[in-house]
């Protein structure tokens, strides 16, 4: 009624991207809760697993997220430890991103330099190899 215009107060445009990503993540979690990836083929088949019979670094990732929605952290880690770590890191990055946006920044959620990027790719590759070796079976889905 008698409120002063506060158009510039809320950084609505800066919060749009974090809000969309947050909604997208919530939708993905809901979908993975409702359609259980533990049912074989419910979300399709991994082409790598289908061709080689061996799990790729991403195999078990959807099951891990489903386990997390049930609060089963141990089950999630035994499905795909890397996916669990990724969920934790991304969730933290998202929270930090929202805080940054509220403070006036419009930076993207994550920015990786080449060295860090290479490290991430290396980590994924090592995880993919180790879970296929005899001593790494505890990392296999």
């Amino acid at each position, binding site marked *: 009624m008698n409120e002063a215009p506060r158009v510039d107060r809320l950084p609505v445009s800066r919060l749009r991207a974090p809000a969309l990503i947050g909604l997208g993540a919530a939708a993905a979690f809901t979908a993975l809760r409702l359609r259980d990836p533990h049912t074989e083929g419910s979300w399709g088949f991994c082409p790598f697993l289908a061709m080689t019979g061996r799990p790729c670094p991403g195999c078990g990732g959807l099951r891990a997220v489903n386990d997390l929605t049930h609060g089963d952290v141990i089950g999630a880690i035994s499905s795909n430890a890397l996916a669990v770590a990724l969920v934790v890191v991304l969730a933290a990055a998202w929270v930090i991103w929202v805080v940054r946006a509220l403070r006036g920044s419009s930076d*993207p959620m*994550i*920015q*990786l330099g*080449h060295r860090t*990027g290479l490290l991430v*790719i290396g980590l*994924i590759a090592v995880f993919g190899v180790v879970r296929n070796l005899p001593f790494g079976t505890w990392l296999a889905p």
Partner: protein
Amino acid sequence: MPHRPYASWGARVGAYLLDGVITFGVVIIPVVIGLIIVFKDAEWNDATDEIIESSINWGGFGLVALGGLAGMAFTIWNRGIRVGVHGQSLGKKIVGIEVVSAESGQYLGAGMGFLRMILDSILGNACFLNYLWPLWDEQHQTWHDMIVKSIVLTKP
């Protein structure tokens, strides 16, 4: 170093899809004509419920194969050589983005453009992360961009 804005991820995906559509347009005509030739005189054997082999024009498959080869040649030119020489495939031209060297800001040249295309197809098939990488990379690079040291910018 050029100081133009990086191409958005959406624009790059759009260009990729457009190149796919254009290539499909190149391939589909000889393939359809070839298949029409193959089956135009085909007769059905009602007794065995099979096609009569002698009624098939096998020569038509030559045109089908030619369509596949044309698609490969077109892709090498469009997504390899053209990107190297002019910075743009046809899809990139439509959305208004171009590939330049991260170091000199110049076009890559035909050879590096071709290498970039080959690496693109290998890395893209090996792992979908390659195509998501520009979303969080400092210089908005895919893995094949990093190897040939290219960046994708908006074209003014």
